[in-house]
C-alpha cells in the first residue's frame, strides 16, 4: 500500500437519496423489528419525518467511498487481501427516508505491522443542506504476502 495515501481527501460522492423501501429492506436484512424502522406512522409518532434507518445503514452510502479508495490508481491496495478490522458510526442525527446524503472520504491513518497494513478510512456523511449526519469509520487490514 502507498503510505502517501495518509491524509488524502477524496471527491464527494454523488448524492444518495435514501428511500423508504430501501430502509425497510435493510432493516429486515439485519433482523430489525422496531416499528420506527419499518412503519412510517410509528416513525412519525416518535417525531421523525419518515422511517428511521438502522444504525449500520450508512454502510450502504459508505460503500461508494471505499470503492474510490480501492480504485485509487496509486493506492496499491489489493482488494483480495483486504479484511475488515473495525467499524464505527458516530451520529449527529439518525438517517430517515427522504434524506439526500453525500459522503466524503479521508484516509486518516496508515500503519504497517508485521507485513500487514492497516488503513483507516473516514467517510463524513452530510445531508442536502451540508449538515453533518454521521461519520462512518472503517479500519481495513491489508494482509501482506504469506
Amino acid at each position, binding site marked *: 500500500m502507498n503510505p502517501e495515501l495518509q491524509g488524502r481527501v477524496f471527491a464527494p460522492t454523488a448524492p444518495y437519496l435514501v428511500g423508504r423501501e*430501501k430502509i425497510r*429492506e*435493510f432493516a*429486515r*436484512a*439485519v*433482523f*430489525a*423489528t*422496531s416499528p*420506527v*424502522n419499518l412503519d412510517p406512522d410509528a416513525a412519525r409518532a*416518535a417525531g*421523525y419525518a419518515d422511517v*428511521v434507518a*438502522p*444504525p*449500520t445503514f450508512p*454502510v*450502504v452510502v459508505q*460503500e461508494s467511498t471505499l470503492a474510490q479508495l480501492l480504485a485509487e490508481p496509486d493506492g496499491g491496495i489489493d482488494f*483480495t487481501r483486504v*479484511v*475488515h*478490522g*473495525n*467499524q*464505527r*458510526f*458516530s*451520529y449527529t*442525527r*439518525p438517517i430517515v427516508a427522504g434524506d439526500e446524503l453525500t459522503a466524503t472520504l479521508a484516509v486518516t491513518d496508515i500503519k504497517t505491522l508485521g507485513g500487514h497494513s492497516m488503513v483507516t478510512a473516514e467517510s463524513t456523511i452530510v445531508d442536502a443542506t451540508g449538515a453533518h449526519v454521521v461519520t462512518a*469509520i472503517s479500519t481495513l487490514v491489508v494482509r501482506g504476502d504469506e
Partner: protein
Amino acid sequence: MIAEIGEIVAEKTYALTRDSLVRYAGASGDFNPIHYRDDVAQGVGLPGVLAHGMLTMGFAIQPVAEWIGDSGKILDYQVKFTRPVPVDAADGASVTVVAKVGALTDAEIRIDLTVTFADQTVLGKAQALVSLA
C-alpha cells in the same frame, strides 16, 4: 429505561442461514462471493461461506434497539471484527448477543455487547452509546 451498570438489558439468539446472507448482500450491496459461494471462499483459504461482518454488526445492535424502542437514540456504535462466522449450508449458524450496561451518565448510557458463535466471541470492543434525552 432505568438501568444499572452491569445489568443485562437484552439477550437474543439469531439463527443465520445462507438465505440471511443473500438477503443482506442484496440489501447492503456487498456482493463479495465469499458470502455465498463455498468454492470461492475455500479458494482463498476459508473453511466455507462466512457471514458478512457488517451483518453481524447490524443484528448485534438490534436487541439494544428493541430495548430502547427507538434506534434513533443510538449516537455511536463501534465493533472490532475478531473472528469469522462460518454459515453451514444445511445447519446455518447460531449467534448470541448479550447487551449489558457498561457505563452510565445523566445524558448517555454505554451498552457493551458480547456476541458469540460456538462459544467464542466474534466481535471485540462492541459498544453503543445511547442518548437518554
